[in-house]
């Protein structure tokens, strides 16, 4: 069982966390103005890289706050976790 570093609580067991999909997907500024295709892009299309991926996580059984993480989808390693108001850190 992995340890995940909650930005507020510190390292906790992975069963306390909930996955929230890709991070940094901004809500469209004016959804009404979007053509259907672009709205569908926002709703349904996400990246699926092998390697570093910025994701949203929720410390569901802990402080219940959301945060972002850069995780390697091939090794499951967490390279960084950071608050939602922080930019994605550069991962070499």
């Amino acid at each position, binding site marked *: 069982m992995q340890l995940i570093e909650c930005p507020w609580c510190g390292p906790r067991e992975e069963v306390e966390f909930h996955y929230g999909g890709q991070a940094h997907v901004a809500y469209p500024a004016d959804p009404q103005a979007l053509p259907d295709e672009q709205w569908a892009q*926002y709703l349904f299309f996400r990246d699926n890289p092998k390697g570093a991926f910025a994701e949203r996580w929720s410390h569901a059984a802990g402080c219940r706050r959301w945060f972002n993480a850069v995780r390697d989808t091939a090794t499951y390693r967490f390279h960084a976790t950071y608050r939602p108001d922080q930019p994605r850190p550069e991962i070499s």
Partner: protein
Amino acid sequence: MTEFRVPSGGRIDRATTYRFTFGGTSYTGHPGDTLASALLAHGVHATGTSIALGRPRGIGAAWAEDPGGLVQIEEPFPEPMLLATTVELVDGLSARGIPGQGRLADVPDSARYDAKHAHADLLVVGAGPAGLVAALTAARAGARVVLVDEQSEPGGALLGSADRVDRGPALDWVAAATAELATFPDVLHLQRTTAFGHYDDGFVLALERRTDHFGSAAPRHRSRQRVWRIRAGHVLVAAGAHERPVVFCDNDRPGIMLAASARTFLHRYGVLAGRDAVVFTTDDGAYAAAVDLADAGVRVHAVVDAREVAPLHWRAECERRGIPVRAGQVVAGTEGTDRVSAALVAGPDGGEPERIACDLLLVSGGWNPAVHLFSQARGRLHHDDGLGAFVPGETLPGTSVAGSAAGVFDLDGCLRDGARGALGALAELGIDARGATPPPVADSDPERTPPRVLWRVPGDERTQFVDIQRDATVADIARAVGAGMRGVEHVKRYTTIGTAHDQGKTSGVIAAGITAELLGVPVGQLGTTTFRPPYTPVAFAALAGRNRGALFDPERVTAVHDWHVARGAVFEDVGQWKRPRYYPLPGEDMDAAVLRECAAVRGGVGILDGSTLGKIDVQGPDAPVLLDRLYTNMMSTLKVGMVRYGVLCGATGWCSTTAPCCAPPRTGTSLHHHRRRREGARLDGGVAADRVARPAGAPHVGHRAVGHVPGGRAAVPGRDRRGLPRRRRLEGASASWRGGTRTCPASRCGSPASASRASSPTRSTSTPGTRRPCGTGSSRRASRTASPRTAPRPCTCCARRRPTRSSGRTPTAP
């Protein structure tokens, strides 16, 4: 009469005699014995028969690597398929051999099992020489240390040897080290505890056996086994090594044993594994067994060394004892019926083998480091051709290997390697270990002659057993390779080698070696199969721990549960909650009771225990804005004291749930319990996504008791002194009911016909299946309480809730 017990020595209590039965025959033994050593003391090698071929099988090693000595325990605690070598002898033990597989006891397991967490800087697995030095080094540096070892006492390989440390008996040093460890408050030292699984980030599971060694005197309050969930900053694997056999014809007979195991039976248990021995080796280690056994009175008729040149030192030792050393020869086969009676020794170029009579054939094909816990953590292995063994092939953060598990096979080297491993771990952990005292020293071993890697001796493949428990032979591997298998994982699955009780502790690497030979590739290139948890079998009961029966999933009851029980409620399970379904009067069935309750609410007023439903309390200046974004309908216009029903949607437009929202005295919303967790996360997401200008918090308040009050006379006209709608005082209900919210009688979930009427009678109408915008309706419930009256009409998602909750639950409307 225990004719194979030596007069003195061993770590057994000869003053006390235990009686036990095996296969219906009575025997005796001593505290400190295992079932295997006690049987061997009576000359009993054979324990059962093999699973497929029915060939006699027996004790082949001294601990968990034994592939042969499986038994069924009948008394005092019935359990199938244990190794006689790992069962500690207790008075009154009753066991029997098995035909390759056991059977579960037909009485319930009455024992208690539990789990415990431990956190440490350093976890040391194995209390042999390397592990003890490592634990001591770390403890002296002030680290929090957990030391686990699977044997009944610490010492590891030292228990089965006559080694010396710091110019004294090695076991004196072990006792001193153990005593010193006990003085550190931050050291947890567990014996009889097997680390069986190594997972991510220093997480290790270990099984502690806590009562079986007390036999029938086991304290009843004590859990029989405990799963330790250990989280360590660094895991140091000092698990030792397993001796491996060499495969030859008829190599499965009782009386054929690993060489070091016979030495362990002698030194630890004071037992001679036979009278007339032949030793077959490819390595130096087996000579120590030959010499020690000869000194203890065993007639060693030959040491057969597959190498061209026998080691000088050991050749001299053997000569002094009159043991013939046959260099460059091999054991090609055996004779015997229930027990080996002769070894067939052949020269390097084959020819007619020579028959040497014996009742004990000791085998050593070198050593396999116990790298299981390293490999489980995804550590790569590499084959050291000089050692003839797979050893850790990389360094992992947070994990290291020391001692013979790392391929260090001499005692002095193990002591030094334990200190090295601990210092490396402490440096990684940032713990200052300067000033650490140097490790103790052992007499250095005589110069080691390189081992010869010999997987098998040529012969009839059909009687050359690779996995003795699975009855799998070299012929099976040849068939697998002939069928096109090229990887060890495929060969394993095709032949079943390494899938038995012992998980291939002796057979796995040999199978890889023979496969590599058949394929004509180096074994290092082919590799081994992946080591997977558990290292040794773990009972499901231990993994389940206390989570059995009523504790498997907690039962939740509301604050007024007793009230429901007193009125004869029939409960249904809703998640973990016990929710009252209806309250039958004598003679009533469900339908009759529900009809009566419906009528009572319709004409009067009812009260619903809504405590089982999830509640989310949304607070903060922008709470109304947040709710507007979550609900499809407007919630920010909700007046204090009022309730409004609504639909919650995600950005995709799918309805995720329906829930009433109420305003007083704080903004709150009540959601269906099974949706609460997800919706709560979405609310949190709404906060975090910064789509709300000012913060709003949304704590779960699932434990708050809530009563919904529907019914034709639920409200009374006017307002109270706080300006809130006046509520009917509900006589007969407990104080817990007060403060409940009134349900919104008809919903505003998007259905145009369902206009809100604050005091209209509760709808119990719907047309099941025709209108289901929320996807959450239950036609079963809705139809059960359907009434012919139809207006005003909520959609099914709302009708689903109301009829069951309101009409189904109120036996005493005022």
